[in-house]
């Protein structure tokens, strides 16, 4: 008879590791199964790790975790073909403890984080694919892996198997996600000497900068691009919903090449050496795409539960927090000795009561609005660029006349009524 654990966690990303760590720390017998060669080997994100949710798990983690740079400046670019309207915030309060957020390289960070779960007592097994949940009398009682004698049993199976979550799909928790519910993001890690990064981004050694780029970075399609500074490399990437990519017949690598050669971006990355090329799907369906998250003997967390806030590029923090909530619910279920859906639904309650679902609910229409009405990215970003150019060009025209001209060009391009409609619609989507 194969061994039985209290908890089996499938997937050693931020969600799974957070859950495994918390369960193991409270003395549960935990098995953490990862398909990659090591945790992080197959995990991808743009690169921003938020302090708050990580700190809840491991206080003062920044003293030992492999982080790149604390982010002290966040810039937002509305980019046109040969111009950019930029705003942002830089603050030195983010350069000191406890910091705000950090850039990280996931291959290193995830490995370290999983190591903490192992230290807490979880058993980590790499290079092993879970092929299905073992279901008996309507209850998940373990998992089947692709290894010989591959069955392992547990009171609770936690599915942290990422965006496509084939395992929760097998259980009928969700259907195949539609192309407008997922974004395809491609990114490169570009090596560049520390001094060059500091000069180009106006930073000191232990300071980082993030730039989110809208508009021409996705050729006006729904999506964003990003450029983040690591210690001695840059993360540059771009993503749009899969549906936009299909409709516009764009290839992701072409989009990334376009971005890298954009006159606003090129000088920042020039002379760098491409070290890694990564691509991944991101669950961006939001509130309406969140599947069933608890069943008899099973819980779904992180990307597998579609917990990503695309508007605020938050995902890993939600993943970690969902892992923590799942662990708390499992620990309570253990006290009750009841792992039924009714018992594990405590996790669902906690999740819906947390910032995670509240934030997703707030933006439940945002992606839909911006995809259905492409004018925000396609027309307003260029319009803003033109307006700023006009406003700041000193040509003897009185400023008041300039403002009038700008307003006139906006309303004549889109029509007054439509502009008002657009503003109202956008406000409604994000209010």
């Amino acid at each position, binding site marked *: 008879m194969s061994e039985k654990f209290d908890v089996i966690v499938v997937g050693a990303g931020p969600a799974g590791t957070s859950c495994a760590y918390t369960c193991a720390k409270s003395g549960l017998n935990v098995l953490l199964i990862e398909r990659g060669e090591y945790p992080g080997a197959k995990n991808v994100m743009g690169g921003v790790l938020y302090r708050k949710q990580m700190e809840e798990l491991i206080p003062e983690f920044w003293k030992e975790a492999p982080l790149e740079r604390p982010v002290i400046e966040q810039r937002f670019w509305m980019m046109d073909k040969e111009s950019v309207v930029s705003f942002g915030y830089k603050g030195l309060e983010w350069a000191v403890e406890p910091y705000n957020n950090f850039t990280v390289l996931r291959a290193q960070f995830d490995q370290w984080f999983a190591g903490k779960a192992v230290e807490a007592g979880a058993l980590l097994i790499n290079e092993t694919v879970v092929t299905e949940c073992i279901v008996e009398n309507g209850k998940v009682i373990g998992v089947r892996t692709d*290894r010989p004698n591959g069955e392992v049993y547990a009171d609770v199976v936690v599915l942290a198997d990422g965006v496509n979550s084939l395992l929760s799909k097998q259980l009928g928790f969700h259907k195949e996600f539609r192309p407008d519910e997922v974004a395809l993001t491609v990114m490169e890690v570009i090596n560049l000497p520390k001094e060059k990064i500091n000069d180009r981004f106006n930073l000191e050694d232990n300071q980082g900068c993030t730039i989110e780029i809208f508009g021409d970075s996705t050729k006006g399609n729904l999506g964003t691009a990003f450029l983040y500074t690591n210690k001695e490399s840059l993360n540059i990437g771009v993503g749009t919903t899969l549906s936009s990519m299909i409709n516009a017949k764009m290839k992701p690598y072409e989009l990334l090449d376009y971005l890298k050669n954009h006159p606003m971006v090129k000088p920042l990355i020039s002379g760098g050496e491409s070290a890694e090329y990564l691509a991944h799907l991101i669950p961006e369906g939001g509130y309406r795409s969140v599947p069933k998250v608890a069943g008899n003997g099973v819980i779904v967390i992180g990307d597998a539960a579609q917990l990503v806030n695309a508007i605020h590029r938050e995902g890993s923090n939600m993943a970690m927090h969902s892992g923590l909530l799942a662990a708390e619910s499992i620990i309570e279920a253990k006290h009750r000795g009841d792992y039924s859906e009714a018992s594990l639904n405590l996790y669902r309650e906690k999740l819906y009561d947390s910032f995670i679902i509240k934030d997703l609910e707030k933006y439940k229409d945002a992606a839909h609005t911006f995809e259905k009405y492409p004018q925000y990215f396609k027309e307003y970003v260029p319009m803003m660029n033109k307006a700023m150019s006009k406003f700041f060009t000193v040509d003897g025209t009185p400023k008041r006349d300039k403002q009038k001209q700008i307003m006139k060009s906006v309303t004549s391009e889109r029509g007054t009524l439509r502009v008002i409609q657009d503003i109202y619609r956008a406000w409604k989507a994000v209010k």
Partner: protein
Amino acid sequence: MHIVVCVKQVPDTKIIKINPKTNTLDRRSAPAILNPYDAHAVQEAVKIKELTGGSISVLSMGPPQATAVIKKSIEIGADRGYLITDRAFAGADTLATSYALSKALERINKDHPVDMIICGKHAIDGDTGQVGPGIARRMDIPPVTNVIEVTEVNQKEKTVLLKRKLTNGYELIQSELPCLLTVEKEINEIEYSPMPNMIEAARYEPIIWAVSDLENVDRAQLGLKGSPTIVGKMFTPPRPEGGKKLEGSADEQVSQIMEVLMEKKDLFTLQPSK
């Protein structure tokens, strides 16, 4: 049957970079792995154990993180693992390494008499192939290198029949036990480890010995002190020239390549062995 397999943690040389200035390996650029030949050595021990019963120990020397290759060996099917780790071992060449390992083997042999030692043909970072035979010499047992098949193990007669790879064929050798084998990759295929092995390995705590845990050790023969090897110069071999591209129809290309091959046919004839 008690088999001891000697294993080494090495940087993955498939991806490692070489610092162009110093010509040394940039060890940070590549993950540390179980030397691939040693993985085959462990796998062969598992195959032999399936026939003869008994147990498999693995032995490694290295820094504390080398416990990773012992765990990897447990995944493949070893029963227990020893790591000898101590500042005094640092900087060892093949002479000092084989000395330290033979001292650990003496202690293992005292607790569980050893019938066979298996090593990989060589480690992919040094490529010397000297540690295996060095251990055999020190332990005064026969070394059999470049083994591609363990044909027969006769526990009663305490003999083993082995197939050795030669440049122009192979050689069958019968050896008495205990003996030391170094194995080639083609000796077996690494099997996909069963789940219970994975769980056992994740849980396994290797036995760790320092110099003080070994008996009758002459410290002068350990580590850098015991290593007469001097590295004179290191360089990266130049990349080979681009070669010649054959043009024309398939038939023309075939006749061209045949001409080239005929010109160089001496390279392909078998040389009589000595």
